[in-house]
């Protein structure tokens, strides 16, 4: 049974932990569209056991278990290798000082972009989420995903370029 005090406590824990938990889930999911489901499962568990939870570390433990359980029971692919061979070749050609922000200005549609991101490797969505939604720096993203900073930047640049072409073709 959940009473008002429990709800208040949950609100507090939810607000305080959401950023870190969503970051963890995004970095460890296999598909970006699973993130929402996993987060819901985590916080359902948190609310169910609210009387036993006194800090965010407990929630992180729940998050780790939920991510494992999600892929175990849904038989989805586990986290793939971050890079395949051809990626390394392309990355080498992209200038490291490229300004991502200025490069593109294209009309977009949320659904089209989301659909496009889902078709890409999960690392792309992860980088996008960490960079654009959580506002992490490239260095921070590289630490989270355990890849080099230049790779993060290159992934971003390449995807934005492809996305631009994709959106232009959709708009025609």
């Amino acid at each position, binding site marked *: *049974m959940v009473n008002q005090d429990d709800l208040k406590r949950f609100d507090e824990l939810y607000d305080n932990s959401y950023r870190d938990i*969503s970051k963890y889930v995004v970095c460890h999911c296999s598909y970006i569209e699973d993130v*929402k489901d996993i987060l*819901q499962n985590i916080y359902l568990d948190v609310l*169910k056991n609210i009387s036993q939870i006194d800090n965010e570390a407990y929630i992180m433990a729940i998050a780790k278990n939920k991510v494992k359980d999600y892929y175990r029971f849904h038989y989805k692919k586990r986290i793939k290798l971050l890079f395949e061979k051809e990626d390394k070749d392309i990355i080498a050609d992209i200038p490291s000082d490229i300004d991502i922000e200025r490069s*593109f200005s294209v009309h*977009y549609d*949320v659904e089209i972009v989301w659909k496009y*991101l889902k078709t890409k490797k999960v690392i792309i969505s992860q980088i996008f989420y960490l960079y654009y939604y959580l506002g992490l720096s490239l260095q921070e993203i590289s630490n989270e995903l355990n890849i080099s900073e230049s790779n993060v930047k290159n992934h971003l640049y390449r995807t*934005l370029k492809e996305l631009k072409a994709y959106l232009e073709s959709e708009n025609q």
Partner: protein
Amino acid sequence: MSKKTIKNIFEEKINKDEIYNYVLCQTLENKTKKITKFIWVPICATCFVFMLFAFHQQTYQNVSFNVYAYTDQSMKKQKIEDNIKFQLTKYNQAMSSVPGFPIYFEKDSNIDYLDIEMTHGEILNWNQDNGVVDKLGSYYKLFENKTLYFEVKNNTEIIIRGKKKGKEVIKKRIIISSKDYQYYGELK
């Protein structure tokens, strides 16, 4: 495409408030489900018992049997109605071999047999062909429509139970009283 615009995509697709609302709704729904489950089980059980009872009652709603007595010197028997006193008469006074007061029982097809029980008296069966009188005691199972004879006293009670598959489906009583050497019966 600015940072803000891509951020909006994730805000829409992995919406923090939406997740929060979902979690709350699910928790309340589960709480309601648990409570309703808790309530539903006894309700369903009660309804089931009630239905069984109603079915049982309905199945045997139309069972009946009729009682006929000879209320005057004629040989004609008359149907006894509930709660109406009738005079018990031996229909043929001239025949001293009439063993007791005759009462004719008629049951419908919904009843397998009539359990007839008597207090302070005796049930008799009289074979008119050979004149043999059988003393049946104070209890008798009657399987066909038939006249039985009763030795009665002032406080005699004749209990008639209609049985179907061994279970009582209807019950009536004939309460015997006497006044001025006359015996009366009342079907209840």
